[in-house]
């Protein structure tokens, strides 16, 4: 039964929610709409809310004046490489720290975890020098290598591995499975929800990374999207309809990922905050 009080309550709830949603979504909406506007519509006072026609002209221009296709490709390559390598390395280490037994295991694990408090900003100076020593400055591998061992993802994966009953391990070993086989054919499938979450967080962090690529990448054709976007202001001058189209290109893939897997991403974030 809908009483009047309940009805006003609901109306108020939705009204407040809508105001909040508008505030949070507005930059995205405004960016998306502006990406379709003509220069005249961009400079209109009062602002034109709705572009007269939705043509993809600005997007085509963006790909013409700057090598955004190259940026996009680099970002994709780096993100895929980061996620694949980091997750495999983390999974292996998490396995060693949970299922295997060796002397000093828990002590070593505690020591490793304590390193997690070092913020990335502390590490960049030496890591830059290391990249220079390895002659990797201005290459795409330099964007992957320093992130290969992520203590944070390893920590989360290990927690899940530890919740898997030990009997499963011994049963598989008795049946003749090697450690390697047990890990990849039994343990990883069991822990799939967790690994999906860490992979998603990893992908978001890699896709959005800005400071490190800004430092180690110099040439145009090695830039990832965030760095390419920033260079777009400094090199091309500020043309807002083009800037908004370029920013939309950079944001859209992650928004699609979020639309598909929002609950997993939110769960992961709730567990450990946003740590890259």
């Amino acid at each position: 039964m809908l009483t009047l009080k309940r009805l006003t309550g609901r109306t108020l709830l939705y009204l407040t929610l809508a105001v909040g949603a508008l505030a949070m979504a507005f930059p995205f909406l405004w960016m998306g709409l502006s990406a379709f506007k003509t220069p005249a519509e961009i400079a209109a006072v009062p602002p034109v809310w709705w572009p007269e026609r939705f043509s993809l002209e600005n997007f085509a221009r963006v790909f013409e004046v700057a090598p955004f296709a190259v940026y996009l490709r680099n970002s994709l390559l780096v993100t895929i490489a980061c996620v694949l390598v980091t997750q495999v390395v983390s999974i292996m280490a998490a396995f060693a720290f949970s299922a295997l037994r060796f002397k000093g295991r828990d002590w070593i694990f505690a020591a490793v975890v304590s390193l997690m408090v070092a913020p990335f900003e502390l590490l960049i100076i030496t890591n830059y020098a290391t990249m220079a020593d390895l002659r990797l400055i201005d290459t795409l591998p330099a964007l992957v290598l320093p992130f290969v061992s992520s203590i944070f993802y390893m920590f989360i994966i290990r927690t899940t591995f530890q919740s898997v009953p030990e009997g499963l391990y011994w049963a598989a070993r008795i049946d003749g499975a090697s450690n390697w086989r047990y890990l990849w054919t039994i343990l990883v499938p069991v822990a799939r929800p967790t690994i999906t979450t860490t992979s998603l967080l990893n992908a978001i962090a890699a896709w959005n990374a800005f400071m490190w690529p800004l430092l180690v990448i110099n040439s145009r054709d090695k830039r990832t999207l965030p760095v390419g976007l920033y260079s777009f202001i400094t090199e091309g001058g500020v043309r807002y309809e083009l800037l908004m189209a370029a920013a939309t290109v950079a944001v859209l893939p992650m928004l699609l990922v979020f639309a598909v897997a929002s609950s997993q991403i939110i769960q992961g974030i709730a567990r450990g905050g946003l740590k890259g």
Partner: protein
Amino acid sequence: MSLRRRSAPARFRTPPRFLTPLAFLAPFALGTLVFVFYPIIDVIRLSFLEDHVFLTGQFSRVGLGNYAATFADPHFATAVRNTTIYAAVVIPTTLVLGLAAAWLLNRSFVGRRFFQTVYFLPLVTSATAIGLAWRWIFNFDYGVLNYALSLVGLPGVNWLNDPAWGLAALMIYGVWSMLPLTTVLLLVGMQNIDPRYGLAARVDGAGALARFRAITLPLLAPSIGLVLIVNLITSARVFDELFPLFNGKPGVAGSLYTMVYFIYDSFFKANDLGKASAAAIVFSLAVLVLALLQLRLQRRWRH
């Protein structure tokens, strides 16, 4: 631990007790040693080397000169001041808005998932990209924010080019970008509260506001503590958004130096490795203290 060890039959243990773990750990260990452990040691060393020349590896002497230079740098003072104001304004604002948002999203209603997704959108977007959208919103001549101000009869503000307003713009962006994580953490905290408490209070005739004050808020204290520390660390790390908003400069006339921008500037622009290292260590110690606090709270929060 010792109980478990005894429960595993000895004959099933892998014979080489050391080689197998080593094989699984090798890539991770190598990466951690080279890219995490060694840099920590190295940066501590560098911070004490004075007049260090990067290319030749030579330095004049060992001392606290880099720390003295860091603390004497007016840009460092600006950075500390900005970070303090930023944290003092953004963190309470975000907390209040986050509590409201989490409280709303914790109720059951049609379309809850949709609203959650919209509220959490900024979680996955890069500061560089959405920062450009904000730059456009903040635009002096054509930006919607100044247009909105003009509707209520207020004069337009030169958000991004007036040193008096740059920090305000940064803080508006800060609240917007920190709100989703704040809301997520508070929402999880609220969902962990046993609904029977609320129900019991309801039976006793407590209104929604009274229930929030007497039940939700006290039981949420650990989550609130966690949020405060996470946001404090985030406030100390402001960097990426300076690039889309202020063309990669720390605001007009260096008015918007932040801690991390100061490190970046000393290292990359001024090539002063010693000072960059000293600043990075000061920054990290500050963050470390906060992180340890966070860890303690989080542990309490989980149990």
